[in-house]
């Protein structure tokens, strides 16, 4: 009994330690984002919230940045959100369809094709970035949302997960649906999509975070500041740090960081119920 209690306490101690490790930096960033720059530079990061919450965030959200001063943090947040959303949505749709065709249509070479798709995991965007850029710019898609999203929508990981899931769906379900008059399209929409709801949520979260945190691709793709994303803006705000024209705006930088993590956190919080189910689910 006592030993049980001890191990339990120990487990909780480890868990608490993990939580603190994750939360403290964010807390520090948040509290520091509400102080004025003089305090931050002279006294270092602050543990308690300060008085300048509204002022700092208002400045960050609405001040125009960049060389031609066309983009605000709000604009970049919206751009990033669009990019993440577009990539996640299209990735999920395309992967589901690809996995559906691989599992349910017995065409020859289905397995080699699957492995071929799988091999593309070894070739991340950074490796094929030049040809990708060439294609996109030839299509005239630089400086557009389509150009930001389209080259990133194929996903071997998601195809793999959906394929494994579809394989676990019992054959009788398909047969029964067939006898009930469902064609292949209806089977996909009426059966596989609702059955893989949790899987979709999990994949969507992964892919959203992946799309949201892209840096190199939008950097190459966008010369027009209108299409800048949050992660690119992060770089700009740090560049300013070293140029040191006036007092470094540390508080605003922290505010910017806090703002930039809100969209992914929002997505995770909204979808987490399904997300967890999707990861731990075994048998349907």
């Amino acid at each position: 009994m006592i030993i049980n209690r001890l191990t339990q306490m120990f487990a909780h101690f480890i868990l608490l330690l993990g939580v603190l490790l994750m939360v403290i930096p964010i807390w520090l960033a948040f509290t520091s984002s509400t102080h004025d720059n003089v305090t931050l530079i002279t006294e270092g990061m602050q543990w308690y919230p300060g008085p300048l919450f509204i002022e700092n965030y208002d400045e960050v959200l609405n001040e125009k940045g960049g060389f031609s001063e066309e983009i605000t943090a709000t604009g970049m947040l919206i751009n990033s959100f669009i990019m993440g959303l577009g990539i996640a949505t299209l990735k999920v749709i395309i992967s589901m369809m690809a996995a559906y065709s691989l599992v349910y249509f017995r065409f020859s070479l289905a397995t080699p094709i699957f492995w071929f798709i799988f091999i593309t995991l070894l070739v991340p965007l950074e490796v094929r970035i030049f040809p990708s850029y060439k294609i996109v710019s030839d299509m005239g898609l630089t400086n557009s949302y389509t150009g930001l999203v389209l080259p990133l929508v194929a996903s071997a990981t998601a195809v793999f997960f959906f394929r494994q899931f579809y394989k676990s769906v019992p054959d009788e379900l398909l047969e029964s649906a067939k006898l009930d008059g469902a064609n292949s399209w209806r089977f996909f929409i009426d059966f596989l999509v609702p059955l893989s709801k949790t899987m979709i949520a999990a994949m969507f979260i992964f892919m959203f975070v992946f799309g949201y945190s892209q840096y190199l691709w939008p950097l190459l793709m966008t010369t027009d500041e209108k299409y800048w994303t949050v992660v690119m803006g992060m770089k700009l705000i740090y560049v300013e740090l070293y140029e040191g024209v006036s007092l470094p705006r540390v508080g605003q930088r922290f505010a910017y960081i806090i703002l930039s993590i809100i969209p992914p956190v929002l997505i995770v919080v909204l979808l987490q119920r399904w997300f967890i189910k999707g990861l731990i689910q075994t048998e349907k």
Partner: protein
Amino acid sequence: MSFINLKNVVKVYPDGTQAIFNSSLSIEKGELVVFVGPSGCGKSTLLRMIAGLEDVTEGEIDLDGNRINEIDPSERDIAMVFQNYALYPHMSVYNNIAYGLRSRGIKKLEIEAQVTNVSELLQIGDLLSKKPGQLSGGQRQRVAMGRAIARDPKVFLFDEPLSNLDAKLRVQVRLEIKKLQRKMGTTSIFVTHDQTEAMTLGDRLVVMNKGVMEQVGTPMEIYYHPKTKFVAEFIGTPSMNFITGSIKDKTFKASSFAVPARYEDKDDVILGVRPEDISITKATTGVKCKVELIEKLGSSTVIYCVDMKENQLCVSTQSRASVEVGDTIHISTNNKALHFFDRETSKALTK
């Protein structure tokens, strides 16, 4: 012209294994036919071919006068109840039943009326809003039935639908299926490996073994006049007794047996006697046996014994025989209920 016609149907799987050998069968409208056989005999394969879930390698399947070999399962107007029910886990019971109707473009009001009808018939009215995961085995079974019935198809196919139920429920559902089928008059095919189920349900049985239809007939025909040794052995519990011997001068002679046989003289004959056609006699004229095991079932007693030549025999008697293990008893056979099979071909002898 029969309602369902199988003409020389053959099934060979892509890997070369042959599941069904040249099988022909006619099923009349409204009949309940049972495919029965041990596992792996091809009964389910044949059913799935009729449903359209397996291709027909050779031969032809007709339904209502039309060849259906090439017709998509969804167009065949056939409903099937699967062994594990294959209910749609993400849909409520109502939607499970309504799905097939919807995909056939039936109007919403009609669907509602039909689902209500079916749920009343099967007494699942209070389950309509539940998901299959919340139902018990028996309830799932009913929903699966309901889904099949709702569409009012030309044919019902049942693929061992009772094997996931416990013994008591199985008997109850068996009766319900029979009643329901009578009431609706829909042509049905039922697949099972359980010979009691087959005997009680079927208007006609098709006994299958290793991809061959061994015998087709009413339960009584099959029980009393099995055409092959396999059928004789498979149908009936406890299983029929077999003794090898030969026929000479209208008498079958084996090691310790001698019974009248009105057949031509022949060596290598197998005598088949059902356990209930053997009785214990007080007289010492019968065959002498030693009792090895007794099973008391209440309504009858099953006695396993060996004769003096080590032939295993099984006797089933209605009377409360006061026999103990190790006793020596004398038995005699009912000579009107003997079956003779050719040992080489396993076929019943003909006069």
